[in-house]
């Protein structure tokens, strides 16, 4: 599938032979010439809104010119970025090329392969060479592509409002270094983001040597790795834990969202899924205990979940440690915990029964003391070295932002260089950053967007996107990854290492050379060869952080515990506030990304906004929970929904004298008196997408309690606002949609799934004859069952099918955005999203069940309220590619038809948009272009022909050229990535005929991957040929948990699901003998068997 091009090494002649040039200026490559190149096309072309086609060509032309002569101090390999005005060797026009690169985020990097079409990166995939991630990638990585083509990016370097060309800005940066060189850096300060880059590490070291008086500060509003001081206290060295979830049979998460928010979540998800996956009845399954205050994806996977305030996690950890270590010194902590009878005891017993094969971890936002206790527990259980590896990490000597603020206040900073980040927006509120920044004489801001911080800075240096940059990064375990550019910077942006190198006065400031020197020094051997290998593989082999032995030392623990805040008594008038990174826009850095903004939060299902999340109990106390009705169908099932839209009450939170206002959303599963505030919204200076979306929770966040704080109050104002909540109804209504069982039941009755569906009570849809067939026969012959209709012919070489494992799906939404990137799916904006018109081809359905749903239509306890402590069931739903598709038979114009390989395909050109197909689709996966989303501005959709028309040129570049852009009035839906299927078939056909076996056109299993499958970290989605009994998809479908969603309708979907299993501990006080959704099903649709429910509610 992948085609990796290893560029031929430049020939001796090319490097040392005669060089050709077009002018003397070009030969000299003087700054003057380079700025001339930039000005070749009309003035201001690089300063206007977005880029136009001409400018894009110009960039290409410039790269041609530069590529031909090489840059000063740089050798020929610069020609890796080749202009498409000139044929590239080995390149077949129309065929994508893949390059290894990486996406840096805080202290980790994500290994990626970038797919480029004609020099434009159009899609990112995980790099499968990095085994721990297995080729998966994340939601943020998928969407980061769109940031490259963001028309609102900083398009020029500016100084006091005037545009500087690249030569001038280089001079400004070098000038800073020169100015402060005399004073050894006194008066100069840097504020940077965290980074894993070895090159930056090296350059910062160099900077410190040259300018020892300069202040180097780092700030991240959100932390995703445990505090370093905890490891130092526990093990006496600068280390961090690397968890091995695949080896853990029992996992206790103390407020840690390790499947999503913590660093390394892809590896975690993949390993966790491996321990969760049950392929036959003898397989065991891991068990997850979660104590958490917010409702996270990790919590949604929990077998036992305790809603506990974050401030009480220390006590929780202490209680657990007391049970496990027996060390009475934890007694004081343990006594602070509100006891849940038997919970800690049984949980601890379960851990102790699995010594060395269990894992306890704490959330990065928790105080060091909690981490330290977690280390103590892991040490006592013998997990260190087994499920927890400790690796030595280089020590960061950066000072915190509060120290920097103090120095600015003291007036000792004359020049402040802000590298990335956005402190004016996200610095702790008590620092008063905006005023501080204004008080500094000279502020140089390096950033990709002109944002809140840039607005207060005299000089703005446009940053290159990572897909335009040379750089490096390290994964969680320390493996070094290359960041290589796919395209020359669209707006002439610089990279961070270049900026540092220039200020530090390094002789070399070309980023590629900087990275080259770092890597070749680490790798050793032949530098050219090892660097090329590094770029080719996308990682530097054996470069992980060294493992260190961890001998736990409890002596520092007491000090840490004493530092940690004592658990506060929480109540209606003293609430705990929990600040979390938003699921989609993170800490705000992705706020101008439309794909992310429109991607619904996996738990709340709110797109385009954040909300103050309150528990149902608190919601009731606030009077915003609508009263339950006695009628089952009209009960409070909709969370402030009115006429199909969530009309949220606006609340005002007061914390430490600071206030903020935001919409309230009742979120089941929260700790009763914890309110959750997602960060990252409410940007005041952003682009056309992110501007003014949501509210900023940074407004009440102080540096003393950045992650959670007690003592807040919440009042409801009279105001109400619309939230684009994409799922109105939370209950599965006792239906057989997500089928679940406890693993014990599964062991006894592996085919339980057949008994809990409607099809168990209806005649067989495939008839007696069909029941005897193999799955492959069934797919190609389509048994008629009792149908009168002649069924379609499926006589293709392949019969495509998909299997989705609900047991391992963690609901991270990566598939949603991967599909959006692959298939050119437009965004529709908040207004249209709230009207129920989002276009996602794959969605994640989220259901809550609390087991109290009654069979009766009227009255009954369970018919009334939104649950406080539900179980969550998540289900990805895309087009099922039904063999007997209900959509096809109702389309009057033959626009949706079946192909011979079982794909339900759309002929967009034929579609007239009757929408009958969407009505008749029981899965509701068809999406309609109500407006010309691609051609019209989202704020003037209703203006019709009077509104502005046309897609920005820059946005066009992000489109996948293999997929049609759909116009208005056309229905669209998932096609199993038909473009990938056809590409795979063509390539295999060509290969087969080249190999002399032209008849062997069946594509081997695993060659073709759909976008959603490829991105999935949990490997929950499997796609392939179901005619091949050995294919992964056939194997998955052969498993006894396999079922068809709404199978009784005889639609015969090609996508089937593997039932979800839960693994509760029968000795736990909150043990449920049946998953709650099954209890609901039994009571609602089978009141007769409700007696079998057993267990406690």
């Amino acid at each position, binding site marked *: 599938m992948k085609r990796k091009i290893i560029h031929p090494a430049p020939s001796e002649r090319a490097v040392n032979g005669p060089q050709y040039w077009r002018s003397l200026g070009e030969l000299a490559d003087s700054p003057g010439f380079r700025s001339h190149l930039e000005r070749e096309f009309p003035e201001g072309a690089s300063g206007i809104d977005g880029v136009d086609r001409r400018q894009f060509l110009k960039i290409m032309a410039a790269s041609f010119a530069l590529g031909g002569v090489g840059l000063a101090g740089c050798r020929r390999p610069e020609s890796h970025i080749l202009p498409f005005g000139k044929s590239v060797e080995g390149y077949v026009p129309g065929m994508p090329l893949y390059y290894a690169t990486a996406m840096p985020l805080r202290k980790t990097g994500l290994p990626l392969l970038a797919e480029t079409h004609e020099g434009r990166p159009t899609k990112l995939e995980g790099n499968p060479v990095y085994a721990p991630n297995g080729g998966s990638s994340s939601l943020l990585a998928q969407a980061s592509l769109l940031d490259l083509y963001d028309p609102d990016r900083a398009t020029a370097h500016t100084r006091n409002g005037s545009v500087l060309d690249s030569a001038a800005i280089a001079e400004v940066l070098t000038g800073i270094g020169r100015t402060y060189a005399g004073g050894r850096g006194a008066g100069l300060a840097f504020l940077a983001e965290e980074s894993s880059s070895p090159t930056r590490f090296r350059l910062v070291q160099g900077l410190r040597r040259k300018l020892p008086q300069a202040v180097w500060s780092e700030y991240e509003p959100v932390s995703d790795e445990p505090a370093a001081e905890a490891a130092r206290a526990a093990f006496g060295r600068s280390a961090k834990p690397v968890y091995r979830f695949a080896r853990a049979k029992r996992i206790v998460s103390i407020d840690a969202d390790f499947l999503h928010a913590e660093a390394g979540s892809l590896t975690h998800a993949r390993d966790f899924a491996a321990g969760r996956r049950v392929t036959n009845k003898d397989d065991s399954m891991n068990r997850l205990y979660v104590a958490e205050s917010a409702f996270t994806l990790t919590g949604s996977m929990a077998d036992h979940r305790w809603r506990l305030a974050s401030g009480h996690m220390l006590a929780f950890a202490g209680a657990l440690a007391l049970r496990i270590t027996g060390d009475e010194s934890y007694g004081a902590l343990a006594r602070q915990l509100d006891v849940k009878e038997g919970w800690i005891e049984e949980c601890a017993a379960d851990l102790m029964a699995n010594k060395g094969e269990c894992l306890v971890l704490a959330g990065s936002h928790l105080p060091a003391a909690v981490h330290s206790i977690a280390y103590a527990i892991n040490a006592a259980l013998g997990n260190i070295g087994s499920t927890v590896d400790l690796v030595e990490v280089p020590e960061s000597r950066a000072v915190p932002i509060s120290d920097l603020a103090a120095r600015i206040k003291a007036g000792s900073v004359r020049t402040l260089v802000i590298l990335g980040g956005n402190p004016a927006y996200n610095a702790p509120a008590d620092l008063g950053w905006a005023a501080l920044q204004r008080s500094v004489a000279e502020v140089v801001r390096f950033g990709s967007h002109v944002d809140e911080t840039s607005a207060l800075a005299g000089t703005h240096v446009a940053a290159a996107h990572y897909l335009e940059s040379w750089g490096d990064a390290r994964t969680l375990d320390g493996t070094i990854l290359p960041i290589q550019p796919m395209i020359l910077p669209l707006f002439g942006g610089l990279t961070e290492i270049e900026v540092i190198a220039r200020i530090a006065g390094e002789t070399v400031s070309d980023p590629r050379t900087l990275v080259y020197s770092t890597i070749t020094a680490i790798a050793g051997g032949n530098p050219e060869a090892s660097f090329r290998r590094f770029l080719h593989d996308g990682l530097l082999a054996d470069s992980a952080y060294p493992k260190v032995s961890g001998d736990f030392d409890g002596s520092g623990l007491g000090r840490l515990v004493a530092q940690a805040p004592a658990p506060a008594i929480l109540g209606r008038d003293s609430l705990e506030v929990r600040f979390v990174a938003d699921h989609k826009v993170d800490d705000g850095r992705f706020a101008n990304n439309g794909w992310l903004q429109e991607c619904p939060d996996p738990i709340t299902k709110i797109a385009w906004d954040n909300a103050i999340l309150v528990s149902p109990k608190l919601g009731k106390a606030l009077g915003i929970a609508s009263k339950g009705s006695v009628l089952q169908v009209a009960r409070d099932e909709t969370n402030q929904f009115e006429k199909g839209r969530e009309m949220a009450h606006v609340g005002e939170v007061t914390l430490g004298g600071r206030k903020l206002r935001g919409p309230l959303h009742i979120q089941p599963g929260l700790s009763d008196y914890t309110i959750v505030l997602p960060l990252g919204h409410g940007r005041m200076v952003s682009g056309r997408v992110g501007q003014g979306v949501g509210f900023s929770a940074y407004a009440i966040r102080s540096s003393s309690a950045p992650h959670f704080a007690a003592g807040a109050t919440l009042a409801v104002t009279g105001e109400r606002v619309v939230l684009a909540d994409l799922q109105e109804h939370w209950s599965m209504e006792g239906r057989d949609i997500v089928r679940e069982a406890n693993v014990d039941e599964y062991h006894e009755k592996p085919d339980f799934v057949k008994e809990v569906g409607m099809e168990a009570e209806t005649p067989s849809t495939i008839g007696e004859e069909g029941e005897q067939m193999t799955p492959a026969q069934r797919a190609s012959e389509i048994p008629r069952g009792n149908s009168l209709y002649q069924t379609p012919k499926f006589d293709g070489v392949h019969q495509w099918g998909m299997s989705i494992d609900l047991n391992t799906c963690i609901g991270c939404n990566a598939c949603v955005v991967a599909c959006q990137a692959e298939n050119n799916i437009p965004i529709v904006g908040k207004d249209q999203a709230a009207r129920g018109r989002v276009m996602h081809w794959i969605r994640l359905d989220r259901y809550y069940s609390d087991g109290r749903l009654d069979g009766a239509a009227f009255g009954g306890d369970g018919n009334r309220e939104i649950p406080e402590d539900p179980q969550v069931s998540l289900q990805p739903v895309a087009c099922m590619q039904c063999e007997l598709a*209900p959509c096809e038979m109702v389309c*009057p114009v033959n626009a949706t038809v079946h192909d011979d390989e079982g794909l339900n395909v759309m002929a967009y050109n034929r579609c007239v948009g009757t929408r009958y197909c*969407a009505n008749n689709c029981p899965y509701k996966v068809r999406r309609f272009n109500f407006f010309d989303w691609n051609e019209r501005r989202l704020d003037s959709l209703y203006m019709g022909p009077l509104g502005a028309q046309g897609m920005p040129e820059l946005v066009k570049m992000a489109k996948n050229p293999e997929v049609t852009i759909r116009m208005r009035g056309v229905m669209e839906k998932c096609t199993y990535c038909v473009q990938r299927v056809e590409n795979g078939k063509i390539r295999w056909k060509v290969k087969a005929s080249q190999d002399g076996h032209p008849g062997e056109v069946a594509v081997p299993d695993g060659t073709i991957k759909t976008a959603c499958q490829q991105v999935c970290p949990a490997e929950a989605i499997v796609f392939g040929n179901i005619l091949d009994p050995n294919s992964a998809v056939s194997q998955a479908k052969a498993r006894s948990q396999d079922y068809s969603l709404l199978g009784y309708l005889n639609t015969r979907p090609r996508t089937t699901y593997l039932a979800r299993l839960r693994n509760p501990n029968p000795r736990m006080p909150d043990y449920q003998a049946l998953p709650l959704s099954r209890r609901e099903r039994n009571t609602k649709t089978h009141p007769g068997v409700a007696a079998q429910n057993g267990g406690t509610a």
Partner: protein
Amino acid sequence: MSDHGEQAFAGPAILQEVNPAVLPRPALVANNRDFAWITNKICGIVEGGTPAWWWWCFGVACFIASFTVAGIIYVVSTGVGVWGHRTPINWSWPIVDFVFWIGIGHAGTLISAILCLLRQKWRTSINRSAEAMTIFAVVCAGIFPVFHVGRVWYAWFLFPIPTYNGIWPQFRSPLEWDVFAVSTYGMVSVMFWYVGMIPDLATLRDRFGAAGRVIRARIYGFFAMGWRGSARAWSNYEMAYLILAGIATPLVLSVHTIVSFDFAVSLIPGWHTTIFPPYFVAGAIFSGFGMVLTLMLPLRALYKLEDLITQYHIDCICKITLATGTMVGYAYAMEFFIAWYGANPYEGFTFINRAFGPYAWAYWIMITCNVITPQLFWFKAVRRNTTFVWVLSIFVNVGMWFERFVIICTSLARDFLPSSWGYLSPTVVDIFTFFGTFGVFSVLFLLFIRFLPLMAMAEIKAVTPQADPHSGGSHSHG
């Protein structure tokens, strides 16, 4: 028994002679009006000056019709997003409006064709205007399915036109059947209406000719197709009319049956049900007669047609309304019964949801208007109070609009997967486009009453008492 019987009845138990009570047949034309009076009355409407109220009504109707025109221009230029549709309710007001108007279009042909075949002579005074109503309702109905599609400029894909790309429409789709059903119905209705009008057009031609109004005479003459009223012409005419009635009769049943297939053939709970064809046809006739009353009663009052549209006519229409309304009520009950009896939880939920869910208000409006309202027609006093009958007929129209709304929207709003459930709110464009079609309808109907004979003069003359040689008897017409 025998003992008692012998003692109680001495004589034979059977009457000597059967003497049935004489049931007077009401006269279809009251007050002994003669032929000339009828001709003058009906032609007079066309020949006389245009009354001021007509101009007022016409102006208002044109204004209202402009809403539809503006709505359509907006939809076509901007996108169907300007309507309230959303996932999962991909059909809403436009299709509700379509079915509503098509339903109204049922009464005309039913009156003309079926009652003609059944020799219900009371049809004669109302059939012409009811047919006109049918045609105009079909015109209004036709607007919606055409313009509700996403790309109306490709709507011709629905017609089986042999083009170079060789793609035919999909004949399995009920929407495709709709295209044929509705267009056939429209065409046959127009033909039937026109053929029935030929003798009367000839009368107008002659009268305009005699009055010296040549242009008018020419126009009516053109459409009268040289009608001279000869016995041979009458004979052919009667046969042609009968044949057309025969053709039109199955269409009355087929159109709404096929419209109901749009829903019945799908698999959505609440749509997927075999009761739909008869239920839809009954509903259509119900709404059609409701509309006949709504139009006819004001017309009768305006043009003083009480002698031609008698109380007997109103009674007949009310009784048909009562019968079909009761059928519709039965269908509502039967849907619930089957939902329960079928034991399918998805199906069961749909119906409970209809009656008690978020759209319960619409459901109870429907029940009130369609089931309870017509029951009042059991009472003679109600039928005799024309104002009250007219108000009730409005209720029927409202109820039948809501019936389609309930069927279409509530079923779609909450189907199989609760994750996708939604709620439909119409936009002003939905509302105004629909409202405007009443203007379109009124414009057409006003033009009709102004320029065409609104009653079949020739046929009415045939049912007057004078036309019967045994006039004065009481048992001739049936």
